[in-house]
């Protein structure tokens, strides 16, 4: 029972983290029609910035805030220098250009921070176990991730659905020319949205960093997961991304936790322990294949087209 609750919360936490990553991706795709493979690099850069700034300032909170600003700035610079020239081009051009950016960022990180990974140590007040149910304790940090991600998701919803900026973003998504003709600086708007997406990716990276190590290529596997999420959820739909992220996070975590034991009932123990990780990794892709075959536009297609 204890294990089930704990794994359930782990799944929720991983799902919310994936949502932060997928939200930026789906915003950028939904609004600018831009496929950004380098989104995982921004996730990685967020983690590296956080590890550096936390070590530099000696304060976890201050370091994370600085890193968030740095990732936002990096996203804006990236959009301004290179990516804005690719809007309206073929998706294949986006894939190729951002593939080049991944190569660049991986080696740039290797040059600046070295090939060995970094650690992002947690302050003492985040490492204590918190009692959530009588007799059930859960690490404070993971709980903090859940809270922060939920707050960010709520803020994102409020910004996009309830503010003037969000109205402009949604208007820009449905008709770029019209909103430009109404006197809105659409280029600035796009740069802002890209920066917002970058900051969300960076936030996901720096929150994941204390749990795993900060290393080169950390953004690549998780980027594919984020793509799976936005495809399952329906590209451009934040609500779809949210639900799909929780779903994928749960399946991945619960699969990893319970599949080995389940398989052991049918297979020999050695075969089960090797097949289980592969099978639980496959589960998500299998899910995506099933969704796409049944609903080629995803579960919650954005209703703008």
């Amino acid at each position, binding site marked *: 029972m204890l294990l089930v609750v704990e794994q359930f919360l782990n799944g929720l936490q991983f799902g919310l983290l994936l949502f932060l990553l997928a939200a930026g991706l789906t915003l950028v795709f939904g609004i600018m029609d831009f496929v950004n493979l380098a989104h995982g690099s921004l996730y990685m850069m967020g983690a590296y910035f956080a590890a550096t700034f936390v070590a530099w300032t000696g304060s976890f909170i201050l370091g994370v805030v600085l890193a968030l600003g740095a990732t936002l700035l990096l996203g804006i610079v990236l959009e301004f220098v290179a990516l804005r020239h690719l809007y309206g081009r073929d998706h294949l051009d986006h894939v190729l250009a951002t593939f*080049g950016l*991944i190569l660049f960022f991986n*080696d740039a990180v*290797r040059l600046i921070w070295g090939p060995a990974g970094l650690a992002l140590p947690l302050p003492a007040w985040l490492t204590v176990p918190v009692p959530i149910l009588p007799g059930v304790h859960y690490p404070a940090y993971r709980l903090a991730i859940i809270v922060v991600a939920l707050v960010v998701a709520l803020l994102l919803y409020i910004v996009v659905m309830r503010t003037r900026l969000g109205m402009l973003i949604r208007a820009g998504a449905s008709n770029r020319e019209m909103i430009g003709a109404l006197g809105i600086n659409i280029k600035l708007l796009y740069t802002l949205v890209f920066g917002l997406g970058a900051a969300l990716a960076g936030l996901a990276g720096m929150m994941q960093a204390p749990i795993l190590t900060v290393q080169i290529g950390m953004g690549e596997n998780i980027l594919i997961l984020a793509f799976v999420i936005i495809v399952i959820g329906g590209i451009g739909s934040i609500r779809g991304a949210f639900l799909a992220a929780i779903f994928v996070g749960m399946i991945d975590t619960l699969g990893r936790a319970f599949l080995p034991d389940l398989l052991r009932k049918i297979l020999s123990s050695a075969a089960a322990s090797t*097949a289980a*990780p592969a099978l639980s990794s496959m589960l998500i*892709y299998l899910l995506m294949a099933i969704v796409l075959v049944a609903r080629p536009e995803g579960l919650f297609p954005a209703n703008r087209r």
Partner: protein
Amino acid sequence: MKALFNVRNAVAVLIVAGLLLLPLYTSLSGNLFALTLFTRIVIFALAAASLNLIMGYGGMMSFGHAAYLGIGGYAVGILAAEGIGSGFFQIPVALLASALFALVIGALSLRTRGVYFIMITLAFAQMAYYVASGLARYGGDDGLTIYKRSDFGGLINLSNRVQFYYLCLACLFGGLYLIWRVVNSRFGMVVQGLRSNEARMQAIGFPATRYRLACFVIAGTICGLAGALLANNTDFVSPAVMYWTRSGDLMVMVILGGMGSLFGPVIGAIVYLLLEEFLSQVTEYWAMILGPLLLLIVLFGRGGIDGLLGRLSRG
């Protein structure tokens, strides 16, 4: 009327001649490394050419093409590990396995379009990657060493570098010829028509998905052959050949060389792999140069190298 003598054709002839004469150069100069490098290049050129068939001519942006490299490779590796060393058995199995995989994932993926197609092919390739990682009997994550290359009796000896090189080259030219015949057949015209205007082709009465699927399977099968050769070349096969960045490499080769041109992917593979080799000798951080270079090519070089040659040809 197209002029026969132009820059584009001259470059193609030069490359073919260069590839044919390369072993002569290496035996004269003793530079065996060049032969090893070019064997790899020729194999990747075959893989890139097969991707070009679906991407350039068919308009199907597959981001999972490296899966066939792995499937062809594992067919050779697993059979060799089980003691079946005959190439006459290994290669057909590699081709058949790739074709079957392409048939299944193609039938599912082709229900989607555009960016969804890119993503679903990517997802299937990642699935294949995880399956290979889970093959504990055949090395799992660490990969599988092939102790003996495919055995073709007395016909050809794959352990002889020159013979193996010419075998790979023959496969490349054979593959290109096949692709050329496919593209210029009625079938190829239909597939290209579907790329330009699917609604119109369907209105004429062509079953879109069936044509696309056939094309997808042909491309996958050719790439499976490249995979079988690649495994023989490295004497090793591991899940890493199916990783999504490998698929990205193949896409880069095709686009760099020029999509939808028969010879473009060959040029792309040569330039990309030589650039990688050259830059990695200059600096350890070669990808820092290659990455922005790709970005520049996308921003300014439409149509890839072949497009550039085409513009030169017209003067």
